[in-house]
């Protein structure tokens, strides 16, 4: 069986992390991506025996290099300032894995309809998050309530919310959820319908550092009868994680967190077959069994008197 098919089947059916297949994936990426092969070579890795022995590849490189193991057709771009955005290339084969993973990663909520403040992929055609919503259209009815990542007209946004049916799922970026909650508090508007609300993290986009619970407490005072969940994902990772583990994220066998205890996120994502699967992300996480919490981006600590190159 071709590696692509093996991985596709594995993402769809796996219950345990398959080390042997993971090694096959790394060998494939090493063969196909010279930059990744160099990374392994400089780190003294010749033959791969165990995933825990290989160095994890910093996501930073997606900002500077074309990391792709096949013929690219297009690319997703992360948010951020120009020159500081990751470009993740894709083609129909890699999108097939994205789709399988996105659908399997999504919790089994009993909902029929998704309302989204994340814009339609037709509008945000570089956004992998918008593409994920497009994937969900195959399984759910997805209604887009907003056409950008900002909410420009809050009055209209609140009017749109009134159309939302009870028992549905509502998608926001964390920044949108914060802004609309603040607006509704200011206007004294409350929303009593029972909903599931998923916000997509990205706390660094907020003006100040919000702790998730603080955001939920604020949003909960407006969306009084809603349940809140958070999604952890990024353009460079084709699999997503949801906070269905008593408020923290649940890993998957096909997107395994290999950080021990507390540390930077080391994740092995099989859905990244055509880029790099073993990724190192500068987010501090704490791992508890098959679940993990994200403590935040690495901050510049109070250093010694040593000069820091930037």
């Amino acid at each position, binding site marked *: 069986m071709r590696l692509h098919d093996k991985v596709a089947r594995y993402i769809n059916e796996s219950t345990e992390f398959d080390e042997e297949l993971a090694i096959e994936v790394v060998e494939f990426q090493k063969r196909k991506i010279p930059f990744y092969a*160099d990374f392994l070579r400089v780190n003294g890795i010749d033959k791969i025996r165990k995933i825990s022995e290989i160095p994890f590849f910093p996501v930073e490189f997606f900002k500077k290099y074309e990391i792709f193991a096949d013929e690219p057709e297009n690319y997703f771009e992360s948010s951020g300032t120009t020159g500081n955005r990751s470009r993740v290339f894709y083609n129909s084969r890699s999108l097939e894995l994205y789709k399988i993973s996105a659908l399997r990663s999504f919790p089994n909520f009993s909902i029929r309809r998704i309302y989204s403040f994340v814009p339609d992929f037709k509008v945000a055609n570089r956004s992998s998050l918008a593409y994920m919503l497009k994937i969900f259209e195959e399984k759910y009815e997805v209604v887009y309530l907003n056409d950008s990542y900002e909410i420009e007209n809050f009055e209209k946004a609140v009017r749109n919310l009134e159309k939302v049916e009870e028992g549905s799922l509502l998608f926001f970026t964390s920044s949108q959820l914060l802004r609309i909650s603040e607006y509704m508090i200011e206007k004294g508007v409350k929303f009593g319908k029972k909903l599931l609300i998923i916000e997509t993290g990205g706390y660094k986009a907020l003006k100040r550092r919000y702790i998730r619970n603080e955001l939920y407490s604020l949003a909960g005072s407006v969306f009084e009868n809603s349940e809140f969940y958070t999604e952890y994902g990024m353009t460079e990772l084709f699999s997503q994680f949801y906070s269905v583990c008593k408020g923290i994220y649940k890993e998957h066998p096909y997107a395994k967190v290999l*950080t021990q205890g507390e540390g930077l996120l080391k994740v092995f994502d099989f859905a990244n077959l055509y880029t790099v699967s073993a990724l*190192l992300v500068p987010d501090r996480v704490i791992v508890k069994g098959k679940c993990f919490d994200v403590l935040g981006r690495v901050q510049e*600590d109070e250093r010694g008197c*040593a000069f*820091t190159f930037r």
Partner: protein
Amino acid sequence: MREDVLLLLDRYRLALSDFLERLKVGKIKSDVQYQQNLLVSLIEHYILCLDFYKRLEDFPSGPEKVFVFLPGNVPVIPFQLLPFLLISGVKEVFFKYPRREGSFYASLFQVLNSYLGDSLKMEGGYLEHTIAFERAKNYCFVIGFGGESLQKVFEAYEIPSKFFGSKFSIGILQGKADKEVLERVAWDNLAFDTKGCLSLRVLFSFDRHMRNELWQAVEKVSKILPPESDFRFDESEYEVYKNFQFFEEIKKGSNYFIVFSKNFVELSAPRTLQIVEVSSIGEIEEFISRYNLYLQGIASDGPILFQSNASIITDFGKLQFTPCNWYFEKGVNYKNFWEV
């Protein structure tokens, strides 16, 4: 007057010896677990340095009240500064220190105050930056150690001040490296987890056949100078890996990295030793001309013939053991320290 200062230095010696004994037996509280071996050796060195002060013919005249901004993770600056404050007649000093280092400094000041009484009142605390900047205005003189943001504040101060910016140190291995020299290189590198301005960060080497010996040396010394308790290996890992394309080889140890390259790479990763393999002194001179402003110390196994801004030029293994008349920057001495 001179007799008073000499007596004060004797009391300070007793205080420091008392603190050292408590440190050796684990009676000093500290949130950050520093490298005990290093700290003990350095305090012993600072005690010996008190003889230098006692031998001075004249003592400088300093301000009455001094405020000091301390950097994080390198807890030796008060030890380097205090004898000088004592001989300058300073009566009161406040050290603003990082949040996590409160317990250590509180223990230090408690011991020292119990010996020095009103001769020099030492206080310290963690303060938010803005509060610290305001509070410092109530002092006669402000001394600061830190980065560019702190430097800007200092430039705006109307009270007398002295600022020492962030720096780093290098090594130059001119001959063939033996085991002992490589262990000294490792000592200079791992001291304070490479976070000090006197920690050796880059070694320029003419010897291209010592990679394995160096690895063995660093491995050995990494056990004598283990990571401080707040060291995060994975953050060094991220820094090293994201620059991999500039390296010929990366060696990952149990709690350190050694990276080999042809050219210097701007890398700021704790417990990481960068080896730049050179073939001419011109390559090092070019580096010096570019980074001279940030150069604190140079360790070497031979004479250094070129000019630089480095405030210390010494043998390997001695970078942290500053000369007794060393005041953080080239050209600064006990006679001109208070001049602004």
